[in-house]
């Protein structure tokens, strides 16, 4: 359960990450490949580009959490909606890259290690718990998205379904460069 306190802790701690973003990205991939050396071969040679995408994705997530209760009526474009983006990301990972479920746990470990190392004393138990809950919820969202891949037909067949909305999201993800975190993935043929 992601509470308002968690959102605040994530936003506040991420402000400390921004000045050391490049170092944090280096640390993340270093730790990830320590945990799973076999993942290294699955990335493009351009790790620098991959790091930029990771940071952009994190920035997008944290920014999406930044709204007050008083703003609840405000509309947000679908392509900037955290739930829709992450659901689509989950679908895309499964559909195109066949991401194994175990990679969620490995990435979580690398991410928390990076934040711990990078933030030092500022990475309090409360901040750790907040990031853990956020990541867990995002992983659940991706898995929900992935689980509906097989039901695309049913979803499209339903009178409410709208494939165009999905396409628009995927285009936005491509443009934003946040759709290619291909952990444990094979290049789509």
């Amino acid at each position: 359960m992601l509470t308002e306190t968690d959102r605040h802790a994530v936003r506040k701690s991420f402000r400390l990450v921004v000045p050391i973003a490049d170092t944090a990205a280096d640390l993340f991939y270093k730790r990830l490949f320590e945990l799973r050396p076999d993942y290294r071969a699955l990335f493009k040679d351009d790790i620098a580009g991959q790091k930029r995408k990771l940071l952009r994705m994190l920035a997008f997530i944290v920014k999406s959490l930044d709204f007050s209760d008083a703003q609840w009526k405000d509309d947000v474009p679908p392509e900037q909606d955290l739930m829709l983006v992450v659901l689509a990301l989950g679908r895309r990972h499964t559909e195109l890259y066949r991401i194994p479920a175990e990679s969620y746990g490995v990435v979580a470990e690398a991410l928390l290690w990076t934040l711990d190392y990078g933030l030092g004393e500022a990475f309090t138990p409360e901040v750790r718990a907040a990031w853990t809950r956020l990541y867990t919820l995002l992983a659940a969202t991706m898995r929900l998205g992935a689980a509906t891949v097989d039901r695309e037909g049913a979803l499209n067949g339903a009178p409410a379904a709208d494939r165009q909305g999905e396409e628009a999201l995927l285009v936005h993800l491509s443009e934003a460069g946040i759709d290619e975190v291909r952990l444990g993935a094979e290049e789509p043929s």
Partner: protein
Amino acid sequence: MKIGIMQGSLGEFDLAEVLQVVGLGRQYTGVELSLGDGHSGMIFVKSGQVVSAHADERQGHDAFRNLFRSKVGDFFVFRQDTPPDLPEPLGRLDTLLMDAAAERSGPRFERPLEDVIQEHPTTPGVAPPAPGVPVASSFPPPAVPEAAPARFGTRPPTPVRLTGSPRIVAFVSPKGGSGKSTLALNTALSLARRGHSVILVDGDVNGDVLSAIDARERAKAGALDIVAGRASIAEALIATVMPRLKLLPAVGPTLPDVDLVSRDPHERWVELLGALAERAEIVIVDTPAGMFGTTRAILRGATHVVGVLQAEVLASRSFQRFSEGLDTLPEGRRPAVLGVALNMLQTRHSASLGVFQGALQNLPAEWLFDTTIPRHPAFLEATEQGVPLRQLDEDAPPPVAFLFDNLAGEIAERLALKRPKKRAQKLLD
């Protein structure tokens, strides 16, 4: 116009999970439910606020809570344009989910969301005993007792609270001398040996846990000092030779203010236990005898409770206070009953066996752990040497020590803890 987002079965993703995911979004999102019992419902969420809910003829909060009653059915999630005349929301989604959980809590609902990322979440149930390890449930059926078994509370208190990831387990007993401290200490040790990180909290000002390991002088500060605001957790926690086990003593070298001890600042206990749960997978709390006073303060902050029942007639008579005491806790502050451990069983004593039989007959079926702990001279020896039972002899612990591995296994299963990695080893190279 409705735009479909996802659909699936509530058997695969429960409603709380689906709603938490929906709560991440800013769209005007509907969750349509077709429940297995022929009922249906709808919940609208926007930006983490529940806008409306209906379940058949019910509306509002009542409908929201009612929709969690069925675990069978399908969900369909869609978004649509935000209506121009949005009503005042029913409330924040996280708050309403907590309230709904407080009304109805089940194994799926209590499952930590972290398990969602596991491909194979742990299956609730009872751990099979290790080969060769004696289990009390294999005792022959007891003879008819001479005295009629005492009555226990017959109605299980409703488990409440969405426990989420914290696991704070209070060991309680209405009667003193039932062996709470011994059970809490040895179970905590076994849980740590299984690979879980554990903090054992001594909640009794008498400091029985540290007495049991002959280490009272090691405490620089304790839980009551933290509650009083005169020490921090870091100052009070004591590391042990077990890397995954830490101890939080009850008090430091001097007793805290008597007024403070008797005042039992409940909220400070809740805060302390919550903070400890961030530092370990499981927090085990040994409580003072009885169901009120400090024990009640601790229970308000615990997610689960283990009742310790001494297999002795007087203890069995007072055990009805266990249910009654829990019932007096306010909703939302009442821990779920993890189980009841029968302690100090004497198989050659008919009155003791009568308590065992009475517990089997009168306690709710799921309460009694399969593992029961006998009265055994090894406990006296361990106390005399100031060590936990298992540490009496590292190479050849007394067989009764293995029972705590069984009990820890049952507790881990009931808490749906992720299983530590198996370390199978072949006998031959």
